[in-house]
């Protein structure tokens, strides 16, 4: 290997190593981001541990009369019960469990697709780039919620895994656009031209140079997509499409179920505010923490902005 090649490789490696240590330092210097991360870990952790924390499941009914529509209390049901005596805390925890499973797995899958499409389209260009980006334009211009409703009805009954797959396929273009833009910029750098001149294979350039450089963008894309999935899934399920609350509670269908006839002056079920307020607060907290954490990560990874 010539000196130039060694220097090129060293630059890429050095960039990557310095990058993570400095990033961590920049990250821990932002109190809001750290707080958001901690809150997010607590909430998602509680959701992930739902099978341990609420062993009786999401449909366990407390049959005794006094537990129908009971307000939150320290004795027994921390977040109260609904009109047939189901524990609201258990349902919300299982709801977070389902929502985060869809969001995290779907988000990772969408990000992988986005990274593959964005890196290859940005590096190779030409007709491949044009095709990928036109698909991205089509998908990102149309409200995702409309497409999702169509697909959810088609796949009925929708399981969590169906929803995960649909989100991965529907949302990758959002990430691919950003990653492609980053790749196009990096591919124009001199060290990529140097690597090409030295006869490095396309695979080597993609994995040694372009992928590490897009790392920050990919991480930020992942957090953004996870947030998007939580948001869009909640909206679709609020409308009554997607995973049904009878099959499996999610944050969206819990809010939908509680607000269809349990809110305001025509509350025929006599539902208490805690039944709809609990999943709402859980949803808003998750979304707020994801966006704060994502912005903090972005600021730490791309300090120029």
């Amino acid at each position, binding site marked *: 290997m010539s000196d130039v090649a060694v220097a090129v490789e060293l630059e890429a490696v050095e960039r990557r190593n310095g990058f993570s240590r400095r990033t961590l330092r920049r990250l821990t210097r932002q109190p809001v981001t750290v707080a958001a991360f901690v809150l997010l870990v607590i909430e998602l952790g509680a959701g992930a541990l739902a099978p341990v924390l609420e062993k009786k499941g999401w449909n366990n009914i407390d049959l005794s009369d006094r537990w129908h529509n009971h307000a939150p209390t320290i004795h027994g049901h921390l977040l109260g019960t609904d009109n047939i005596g189901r524990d609201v805390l258990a349902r919300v925890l299982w709801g977070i469990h389902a929502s985060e499973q869809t969001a995290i797995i779907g988000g990772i899958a969408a990000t992988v697709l986005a990274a593959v499409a964005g890196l290859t389209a940005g590096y190779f260009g030409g007709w491949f780039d044009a095709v990928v980006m036109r698909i991205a334009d089509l998908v990102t211009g149309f409200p*995702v919620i409309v497409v999702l409703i169509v697909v959810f009805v088609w796949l009925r009954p929708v399981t969590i895994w169906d929803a995960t797959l649909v989100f991965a396929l529907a949302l990758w273009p959002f990430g691919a656009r950003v990653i492609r833009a980053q790749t196009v910029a990096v591919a124009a750098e001199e060290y990529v031209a140097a690597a090409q001149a030295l006869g490095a294979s396309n695979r080597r350039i993609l994995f040694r140079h372009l992928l590490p450089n897009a790392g920050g963008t990919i991480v930020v894309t992942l957090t953004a997509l996870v947030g998007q999935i939580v948001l869009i899934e909640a909206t679709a399920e609020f409308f009554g499409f997607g995973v049904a609350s009878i099959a499996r509670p999610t944050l969206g269908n819990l809010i939908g179920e509680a607000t269809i006839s349990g809110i305001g002056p025509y509350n025929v079920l006599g539902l208490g505010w805690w039944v709809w307020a609990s999943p709402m607060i859980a949803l808003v907290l998750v979304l707020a923490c994801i966006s704060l954490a994502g912005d903090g990560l972005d600021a730490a990874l791309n300090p120029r902005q």
Partner: protein
Amino acid sequence: MAGLVVKKIGLAVAVLLALTCGSFCFFAWLGGFGHSPGPSLLTLYWRWLRGLFGGSTLHEFSQPTFTRNFTLQNVTMLQALGHTVVLLACAFVLVVVFSIGLALLAASRRGSGLDVGARALAYLGWAVPGFLLALLVQLLVNAVGGARGVGPFPIAGWPGTCPAGIGVNSGHLTPCPGAGSGARYVLNVLRSTALPALTLAAGFVGVHARYLRSALLETLARPFITTARAKGLPERDVLTRHALRASLATFVGALLSDFGAILGAAIAVDWVFQFNGLGTVFISEFPVDFGSVNPYSLVPLLFLTALLVIATSTVGDVATYWLDPRVRRRG
């Protein structure tokens, strides 16, 4: 300029054709159309497309729409489109006015309480989904003014159509708002649009104010701003005449590329506020399963939604071209 417009319109027509053809064939296939003997799916689509120019398809747009239980809704598809356009237009005006104001203040007083507040608003707008904000606004209105709404602003509904949606007042709108005629009708429309449009705009003002603020700060660091200041221009003119003018293209581009999300939120707001727009019709007309799906009622809805999206993006491209000389030079 004319070349660009022709190119964009051609592209828009191609996308619309592909979209309607795909969705028509998909729904017709699910609904059991197109089997032999009988016309093929493409023949049916061709007939539908021909009908769009003055035939039976066009007639469909002015027919009453149905809910998924086949009960009649008293709104036609064209009326629904009108309601959605009014909602979107009012929300767009609010977003543009408030974001520009907020961004100018935030950029000129960097790090102040106002700047931090605008930032917090952006995060809040992001964290509270459209449907949730709409529900919360309704709950608040209900708590303050009861089921009739607050002051002149009704809690839900579109003047002249009795809604049956979701939310605080689902299916029980009291009273069913009167339509009136002439100026009275316009006033009634504005009254019932106020709360939904504010709700829809609130979710996007913070985010777009932030985009514009960072674009402004980037512009303010450029040499031509220093020149303008050195020439003794008052700071207000530097900000509005020079910095804002140069950052506007970025802002408009970001706002219009966000149109998919805004329309998605508009569907939710429309549904919760029982606005009888495309969102309400779409959600209530959409079948719960595809056994009995009717492509002739669903595809027009998707067509109108796509038309809205594509028209906006075409207008956006032309606006960017017009606003930004750099784009014009690149061709």
